[in-house]
């Protein structure tokens, strides 16, 4: 038998943690199949009612909205993050790279409440953008941006960019600089080098970034909650309404289960594609 120092001692804490997490998820699963007894936090008998209820148009619309907002957010996050990631990796001066990394990553660590609140100040009817545009005489009356899908997406994109930038920057930094030089040497103009070499070689980073951001945005809560203000509902807001406002734990459980399945599902669907792409462009 091979020696395995510390094996059990190192394994047990991990098993305990995994056990706790699985127990929590198992309880969600269990509650989702129980009936709701109004006025009580304890669930009733076995039922499929919670899942049947999901098919009502009002909930399907929320699901569709969640999907649309996530998709838009992912697309814009990708488009805005790529140039920043590229600059972050390729800037020649060290201080520029430092500035970029700090500016790009700080939003990641200030926490969602701070970021969401900041967007309320920027987008509100007396907020920064409206005051600026009114001051410049561009608009006469404030634009409605808070409590709209537009506002939610604008905030979510900024929210998602740091992670996307990190994933893309990692991919871009792994592109062999000699490959780009070889393309230029063979007569490719800078734009051609980018489209024919750099972009294809960073495709795996793009795909994994898209997957992560899509799954992540599907489960965003505080942004739709505060910027959407009840007018824009994503699945997370329904869970909150059902669970912590109406105390309908079983239905909230069913909804959070659906959210989990959507997040894990989109990942499971796209991950193999990402793996194939990775294999295709990897040099070895």
């Amino acid at each position, binding site marked *: 038998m091979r*020696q395995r*120092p*510390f094996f059990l*001692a*190192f*394994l047990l*804490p*991990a098993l*305990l*943690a*995994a056990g*706790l*997490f699985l127990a*929590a*998820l198992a*309880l*969600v699963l269990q509650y989702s199949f129980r009936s709701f007894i109004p006025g009580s936090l304890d669930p009733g008998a076995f039922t499929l009612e919670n899942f049947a209820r999901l098919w009502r148009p009002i909930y399907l619309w929320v699901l569709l909205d969640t999907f649309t907002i996530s998709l838009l957010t992912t697309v814009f996050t990708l488009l*805005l993050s790529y*140039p*920043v990631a590229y600059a972050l*990796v*390729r800037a020649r001066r060290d201080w520029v790279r430092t500035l*970029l*990394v*700090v*500016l*790009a*990553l*700080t*939003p990641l*660590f*200030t*926490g*969602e*409440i*701070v970021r969401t*609140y900041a*967007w309320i*100040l*920027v987008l509100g009817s*007396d*907020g*920064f953008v409206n*005051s600026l545009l009114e*001051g410049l005489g561009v608009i006469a009356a404030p634009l409605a941006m808070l409590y709209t899908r537009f506002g939610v997406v604008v905030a979510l994109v*900024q929210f998602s960019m740091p992670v996307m930038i*990190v994933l893309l920057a990692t991919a*871009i*930094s792994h592109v062999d600089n000699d490959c780009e030089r070889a393309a230029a040497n063979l007569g490719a103009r800078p734009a051609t080098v980018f489209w024919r070499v750099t972009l294809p070689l960073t495709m795996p980073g793009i795909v994994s970034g898209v997957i992560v951001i899509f*799954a992540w945005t599907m*489960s965003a*809560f*505080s942004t739709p909650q505060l910027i959407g203000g009840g007018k824009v509902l994503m699945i*997370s807001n329904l*869970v*909150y309404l059902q669970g*912590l406002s109406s105390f309908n734990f079983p239905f909230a459980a069913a909804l*959070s289960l659906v*959210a989990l399945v959507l997040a*894990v599902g989109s990942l499971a669907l796209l991950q193999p594609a990402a793996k194939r792409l990775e294999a295709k462009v990897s040099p070895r």
Partner: protein
Amino acid sequence: MSPIFAARLRAALFWGPVGLILLYMTIPALVVVMTSFSPSELLEFPPAGLSLRWYARALSYPDFRNGFANGLIVTTFASTAALAVGSAFAYLVDRYSFRGRAALEAVLSSPLIVPHFTTGFGFLLLGAELGLTRSYAIVIAAHVLLVLPFVVRSVYVSLKNIDPRLERAAANLGASPGRVLARVTLPLLLPGMAGGWLIAAILSLTEFTASLYVTEARTQTLPVAMYGYIREYSDPTIAAISALLIIATTLLMLLANRYLGLRRILAIDAH
């Protein structure tokens, strides 16, 4: 068009948009800081003057003080526990293959994908089941799971960077497995563990969605207290406390970049 002019034009066409995008990313923070010094109770731009009254209020507001204290308790315990569990697990993953390793890895990294509200809701139910609803224990447990993937990743990367020959050399020179771990592996892992702990602590301190489910009035953390305040009031107190958090985070990022090399940690330096 001369090549030099073309190169300049290209640079301008690239850096212009990059600057605008960075402005978009940064403007919310700037607006928050600006608002936090406003003397007026209403949100208005540009602010009519300079005042520190919202800072005074933010720092004396009981919910925030309690929230901050709770946050420190939760964060200290959660990120330290996550560091211990995560480092041990990363070591296992790196060194041993055993049945169920892939499954265990999948479970412990899944909090990255599982929506925070699902995790939070699950731990709320778990807390009720175990009779821990009003305790820190369930909050800490939820936070440990949420930050664990980051710690594991950070330590795992450091482990991968350790030359296995160093440990073999120590063993060859007569060090027992325990001494190899204590005298060679751990010292080499320290930067990775410190980085992992720091990320875990920041994420735990600012975590909101799951915390909303697992905390209650007595155990609520700062973000939850702030959320409550935003729903009740609309004065710039939140701007003041947000500004403090933003400035603290920026300083922390600058320090982390200076001493730990952010770009190296994130593996985003061109080679």
